[in-house]
């Protein structure tokens, strides 16, 4: 993916405006997750008030062992970039969005980022639905409430009914399922709202 090597041109100023306003009180987070290239970075960029930042996360030994089994030898340490963005809301709420890769081998990192999160927005590419099975497994095992958003890629198949898509993903009847253009702020906000409304309507039990 180009996103891994090239930095994105963005005219939001770097640095200075990243510092938190004094009004910031309640910090909350939502994970934006899904397989490679599904639009996580795009969604965060379209709604974040700051130029999206990223941290380099050291992968743990457990993940390194998985890589070893795959035949990658002498790999001491690797990193994965985790993008994040921020939205300040009235009343001192600051919502953080973490673009978290959904591969099984990132499980430990996933759980670490998921700690204390409101929930996860799971992006799905209708052209390769099975690429999302890993991430749905991670989300369900973490106990985080979630909503599913199909990204509107132009060549996505259109013949599936919502019922077929739900069945393919094995979703609970109450799990929100929306479509979203991650490049558009309003569309991305609607997808986030579907998740937050789900939390309001279903009073999630305290996850593990």
């Amino acid at each position: 993916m180009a996103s891994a090597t090239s930095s994105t041109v963005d005219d939001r100023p770097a640095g200075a405006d990243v510092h938190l306003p004094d009004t910031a009180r309640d910090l909350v987070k939502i994970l934006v997750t899904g397989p490679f290239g599904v639009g996580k970075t795009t969604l965060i960029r379209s709604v974040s008030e700051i130029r999206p930042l990223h941290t380099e996360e050291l992968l743990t030994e457990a993940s390194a062992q998985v890589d070893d089994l795959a035949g990658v030898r002498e790999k001491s340490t690797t990193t994965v970039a985790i993008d994040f963005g921020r939205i300040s809301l009235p009343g001192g709420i600051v919502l953080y969005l973490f673009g978290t890769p959904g591969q099984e081998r990132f499980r430990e990192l996933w759980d670490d980022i998921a700690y204390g999160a409101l929930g996860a927005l799971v992006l799905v590419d209708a052209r390769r639905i099975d690429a999302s099975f890993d991430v749905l497994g991670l989300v369900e095992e973490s106990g985080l409430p979630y909503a599913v958003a199909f990204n509107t890629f132009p060549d996505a198949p259109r013949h599936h009914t919502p019922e077929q898509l739900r069945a393919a993903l094995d979703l609970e009847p109450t799990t929100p399922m929306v479509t979203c253009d991650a490049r558009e702020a309003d569309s991305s906000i609607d997808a986030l709202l579907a998740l937050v409304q789900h939390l309001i309507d279903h009073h999630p039990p305290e996850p593990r």
Partner: protein
Amino acid sequence: MTGRRGGRPLVPAYLSTGGVARPSRTHLERLSVLTCSGGRAPTDLPAAQAALLEELGHGSLTVVEAAALLRLPVSAVLVLAADLLDRDLVLARAPIPPARRFDPDLLKRVADGLRDLKHR
């Protein structure tokens, strides 16, 4: 392959040259907000701690924001922040406690705030 971004070392030098995590009593996490206490920094403050303190001199930052700006792993910033907390040079405030995150009033404020963003 390691070090995708500009050959920056993966493990900061101070971690491999005896930087030790003192167990700080304050629990720190990714979204803990770090603020300068205003205390005077000793002149022999280790460079990495001084760099974090300097960043915080411009205003409060969460741990992840500090990690991104300093280009350090989150785990390294957690160690640096704990050191600065122990020296009373930094204050830390926790994000929403997990037990409060599904508070209906909080969730409603998040939803209302997001809706307002759309009408701008």
